[in-house]
């Protein structure tokens, strides 16, 4: 079954089968900590702990203990990634590329990269946020007023021209 998933890893995870290992109360910085893993199963993983795909009961438990675990409902691989596309057999090249491109667009990777390329001060940030908000709201509520005014203007002038003729 083809599944394409987008993951945002926020926290280090812990095995639900090891209750004495309590996670720290404040959110620790994630991911690129070369702390030795406490598991013997996968010694090559440089991460603090690994999160396994939960059953329904343990997911409730884990979301209670560490709320951001509720986000991670998919397998956690060795390296963190933003977008993953699972390739089926015999998928045409164009379709695969388009699928990948669409996933990346949905995740906003390239936009984010371009934003972080150079520093933006508070002014720039405010401008960008208003632009994004306008774009988002425009998609949901198409602006009716200005368009209606233009329509009223145009037929009025046309009528005048017809009467003159």
């Amino acid at each position, binding site marked *: 079954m083809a599944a394409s998933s987008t993951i945002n890893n926020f926290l280090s995870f812990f095995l639900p089968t090891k209750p004495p290992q309590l996670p720290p109360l404040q959110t620790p910085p*994630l991911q690129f900590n070369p702390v030795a893993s406490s598991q013997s199963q996968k010694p090559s993983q440089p991460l603090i702990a690994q999160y396994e795909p939960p059953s329904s009961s343990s997911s409730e438990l884990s979301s209670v203990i560490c709320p951001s675990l509720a986000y991670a409902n998919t397998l956690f691989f060795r390296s963190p990634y*933003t977008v993953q596309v699972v390739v089926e057999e015999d998928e045409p090249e164009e379709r695969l590329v388009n699928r990948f491109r669409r*996933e990346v667009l949905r995740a906003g*990777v390239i936009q984010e990269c371009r934003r*972080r390329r*150079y520093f933006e001060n508070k002014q720039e940030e405010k401008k960008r946020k208003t632009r994004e908000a306008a774009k988002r709201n425009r998609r949901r509520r198409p602006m009716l007023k200005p368009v209606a005014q233009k329509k009223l203007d145009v037929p009025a002038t046309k009528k005048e021209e017809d009467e003159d003729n």
Partner: protein
Amino acid sequence: MAKPIPKMGSRKNGRIGSRKHTRKIPKGVIHVQASFNNTIVTVTDVQGRVISWSSAGTCGFKGTRRGTPFAAQTAAGSAIRTVTDQGMQRAEVMIKGPGLGRDAALRAIRRSGILLNFIRDVTPMPHNGCRSPKKRRV
């Protein structure tokens, strides 16, 4: 690994280090780093040890032409050619960075006939970390 014990005579010939590099790896990872100015394609094994690499610059492109999708295509093709000779069948693709080389390299990899498991985007994303360089005033 069945490596033949070198005889006394061959030891005198100097290094047999090149023998070590022909290891057959059926499964690997293809890393594509697509920046705005260049595309680098590195083929590693599953642990991350590099087998071979190629880039738009090593393929003979120079300057602004390195950043083009065609250059990315040739770089990917060249990297994969050396690796399929060593017998790699399945691969995962990890794409990093913005840049025009992303799609082109992916296309070339797909066309080369290597089986793909996953395609992942591993662009490093800071959670608001270091301050980026200042704006360019061109």
